[in-house]
């Protein structure tokens, strides 16, 4: 009797704990946004959402092994993988990946790099900033005779997945030699941990090039390159151009929202756009309800900060589709 009541007391206390604390981990790509949402959420509801930005690889791994309440990844998982690991998936926002550089004296969007050239730089085939191939598209820029330091990720990263997906599509040699993945065997460069680490190394290292989510570029005043659309037109990483890509997304509940947004058609579609996703363990219904509450609340009140940071909020109809997905799964 005593034991029984003790057990139920224990269960009750863990439930109470569950209600005001959530642990999430994963993608660094949306981390600035989730930090912001979590900060506001704690201020308004008292629920603490402890989000640790450890990379998408970490997010998938830790939610698969049920070590966190929710995982975050910018590499969407296919339905069969989700089924196998008993996971649910929905997008939380859209962002764009910017090719950033640090060349003293050269400003934002001053350098134009064709998509294929970006691949050659990350392959280590183009090693200097004043390489004729770069010069050809930048006749008026005073390109320095300096070695290019390539900065990439050291951890398993959804940003890397989307970036290498893009490189594989636009550069044949990249596809053959390196391929697509969250962590690849990089031909050159040095590795920073998270979008944070890459941004930091690019900031610290003159004549470097890297790739980070738009929010990191903005918050840290980095310079980004103008790249090309799938159809070969010059395009800058602006909000409108990212939106132009995002509008091609075909979100559907059936595929658990699986969607890759890189290289969409259209004359002003920025080529490296990606959704960022949340992964939930199917069996933890109560916990999932709490997680969903947080995202529902952020969908309602968080668009403004998303835009300020440089993300594209999901359109209202997509949000409603997600809500109905939650309802189907019995967690909303």
């Amino acid at each position, binding site marked *: 009797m005593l034991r029984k009541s003790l057990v139920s007391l224990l269960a009750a206390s863990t439930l109470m704990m569950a209600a005001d604390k959530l642990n999430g981990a994963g993608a660094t790509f949306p981390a600035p946004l989730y930090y912001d949402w979590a900060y506001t959420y704690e201020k308004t509801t008292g629920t603490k959402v402890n989000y640790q930005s450890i990379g998408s690889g*970490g*997010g998938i791994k830790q939610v698969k092994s049920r070590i966190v309440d929710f995982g975050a990844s910018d590499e969407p998982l296919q339905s069969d993988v989700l089924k196998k690991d008993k996971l649910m998936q929905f997008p939380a926002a859209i962002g764009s990946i910017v090719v950033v550089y640090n060349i003293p004296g050269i400003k934002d969007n001053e350098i134009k790099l064709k998509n294929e050239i970006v691949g050659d730089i990350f392959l280590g085939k183009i090693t200097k900033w004043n390489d004729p191939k770069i010069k050809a598209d930048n006749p008026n820029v005073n390109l320095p005779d300096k070695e290019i330091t390539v900065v990439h990720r050291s951890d398993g990263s959804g940003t890397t997945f989307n970036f290498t997906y893009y490189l594989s599509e636009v550069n044949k040699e990249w596809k053959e030699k390196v391929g697509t993945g969250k962590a690849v065997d990089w031909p050159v*460069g040095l590795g920073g941990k998270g979008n944070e680490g890459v941004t930091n190394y690019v900031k610290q*290292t003159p004549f470097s090039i890297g790739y980070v989510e738009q929010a990191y570029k903005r918050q840290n005043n980095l310079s980004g390159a103008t790249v090309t659309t799938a159809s070969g037109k010059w395009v800058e990483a602006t909000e409108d151009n990212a939106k132009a890509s995002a509008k091609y997304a075909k979100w559907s509940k059936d595929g658990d929202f699986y969607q890759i947004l890189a290289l969409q058609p259209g004359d002003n579609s920025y080529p490296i756009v990606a959704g960022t996703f949340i992964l939930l363990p199917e069996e933890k219904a109560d916990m999932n309800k709490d997680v969903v509450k947080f995202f529902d609340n952020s969908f309602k009140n968080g668009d403004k900060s998303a835009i300020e940071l440089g993300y594209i909020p999901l359109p209202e109809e997509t949000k409603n589709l997600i809500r109905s997905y939650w309802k189907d799964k019995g967690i909303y």
Partner: protein
Amino acid sequence: MKYMMDTLFENLTRFLALLVLVVLVAVFVVLYNNAEPAIEKYGLSFVTNEKWAPNMNIFGGFPAILGSVLSTLIAMLLATPIAIGIAIFLSEIAPAKLKTSFGVSIELLAAIPSVIYGMWGLFYFAPVVREIFGGNGIGLLTGGFILAVMIFPFIAAITRDSMNTTPDILKESAYALGATKWDVIKDVVIPYAKAGVIGSVILALGRAIGETMAVTFVIGNVHQIPSLITDATTSIPVTLANEFNEAESKLHYASLFYLALLLFAISFIVIAFAKFYFLRKVRKAK
């Protein structure tokens, strides 16, 4: 009653002393068990395989092992002479006042958490390396440098202690025979302190090869064999810090445990070697 309590107490203490042994064995067993899929798949060729590509599920430990060995080697080559110089200065040259204050600050430096060395290395030392040696400042050389700065106080402090154990009477008789300071150091102090000095250097080596935080900020975190000393590379602890929390595939996870097992074995051998050959303390019989 009296004896029962005594036996109880003795058994309790013996059990806890044996616990240390149990933990050591448990570490080996747990690491081995978790590493098994990688050990089965690669065997010892894991040590020489060069490619580490998680997206293709290929894992070779050579770059990380090489990075560990090279960064430690650089650190030892830089730190040992400086540390021994400092020890000579402290035990034989410095005036008494400086001896204590400088000696104490060296010991305090050895107590600073290694993550702080890493921060200092990234923000202050890497740019200096970039200026002097070229490259981008992040790489093997910088990693070795930071390790050297981290371990030289440790070597210096122990070496000084060993040198200080030389009986004054030996030194004084040598001076009386007309020996210079260097003669005394070379022929009296160093032979007397040799075992302790070598032992401390090997202990420092053990510490350097297992160090994570001081190195991960500056070594570059890439599985690549450096062709220049300033190139980016990785080491075993750095690889673990970067990838352990996210190793999704079974083989990736197991390969990281394989690396951890190798590191543990290397440090075990290094330290055991130092202990058995140089630092064997003879316990005074009571």
